[in-house]
């Protein structure tokens, strides 16, 4: 799936837009309100969905090679978070959905991606 598809399904607005050449192919989504959960995931090429807005979200995204951060519940992150994102070249979006609703919205897309993969492996 593509980054742009996810953003459209969530009706998210960009707060820090991806730079030209930013990877657009997304493999998975990691939804969590605990940074520890994101740090413990083994997912690759994933996008973070979270209600957390501190600069630490960006640090964690950077450490885990996340492709971007979508902030849910319509929260506005502090400037320090956006500054960290720009510095680390981690794109950030904001959507008004709750975390659970955002997962529901993305589920068909993720399902489709997974079934494609399982077909490819069988």
């Amino acid at each position, binding site marked *: 799936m593509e980054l742009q598809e996810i953003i459209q399904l969530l009706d998210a607005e960009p707060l820090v837009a991806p730079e030209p050449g930013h990877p657009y192919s997304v493999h998975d989504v*990691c*939804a*969590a*309100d*605990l*940074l*520890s*959960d*994101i*740090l*413990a*995931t*083994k*997912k690759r090429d994933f996008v973070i969905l*979270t209600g*957390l807005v*501190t*600069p*630490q*979200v*960006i*640090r*964690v995204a*950077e*450490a*885990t*090679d996340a492709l971007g951060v979508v902030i849910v519940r319509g929260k506005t992150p502090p400037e*320090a978070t956006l500054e960290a994102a720009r510095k*680390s070249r981690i794109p950030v979006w904001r959507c008004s959905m709750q975390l659970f609703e955002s997962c529901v919205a993305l589920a068909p897309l993720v399902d489709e991606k997974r079934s494609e993969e399982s077909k490819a492996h069988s």
Partner: protein
Amino acid sequence: MRTRIDPVSYTPFHEALYDLRVRDAMSKNLIVLGPDATMLEAQVSMRDHRISGIPIVTDGNKLAGLVSIQDVIEALVANDIHAPVDKWMTQKVCTVREKFPLIQAVKELQKKGFGRLPVLNADDVLVGMLTNNDVTRAVMLRLNEEAKAAERREADLLARSMTATQERPGIERIEVRVEPMDLDAAGTFAGLVKKALKNRGVPPDVARRAAIAAYEVEVNVILHSMGGILEAFLSGQGITILSRDRGPGIPNVDDAMKEGFSTANEVVRALGFGAGMGLPNMKRCSDEFSISAPASGTTVTMKILFNPPAPASHAVQENT
């Protein structure tokens, strides 16, 4: 007779007294008079040089006697201030040898209540004078020298240990000092680690594991310790992350290693931390992991190899 010194009160001051010789402390700037000088000259000389006693010497600087303020007073009372000094001087003078340990001279000064002692060499020639002030100054100088030498030794040791880690060929070192609860700085160390690994072109999954381990330990030190030092050593084979904090340690490391165990408070949890996954995740990300957590401070060492022998062993859990 030996003076007994209570071992409890035996201080570096005493050590210096035993170690120093009289010649190390005495003043060599001698103010002397010949035996034919008058008591008035002796009094003027003592006043001008602000000294309380003046040695009287014959040819070859041999000590003939000593004129003290007391002697001058006695001459004045007798209305004999113009008499030669050898009439009023003290002839049986208590002296000390230049090679004697300083402690012996100190005992002599104390025992007899003298303000000064003439110092003689092996040929009985007057070579100096020793006062209580000279003793104090010499001991203080010695203690000061010793303190400086100790500082230099410590600095040398530190420099050598730093060199051992900093300048080992082929080893790149990263160091970040962490202050308690300074969450704004969290991620600085992990960011530097990741950047260094990226520059070296190590496999992305290895860089990711190292960055996660570095971040977890960094946040732990910030949230749970009184501050500490984080270091990373990069070689051709891998990266070693070393975290040393200033305490208070971990009461039960086995509990802390269990997933979900956390001592974090509500404030920490509200920030998205404190899920009790830190230590287990560090261990999962590392090829080698060790922790010791006495009250004096926790030390965590993690090694991540660039070409791990069994990559499957690092399987991290699927939890989202």
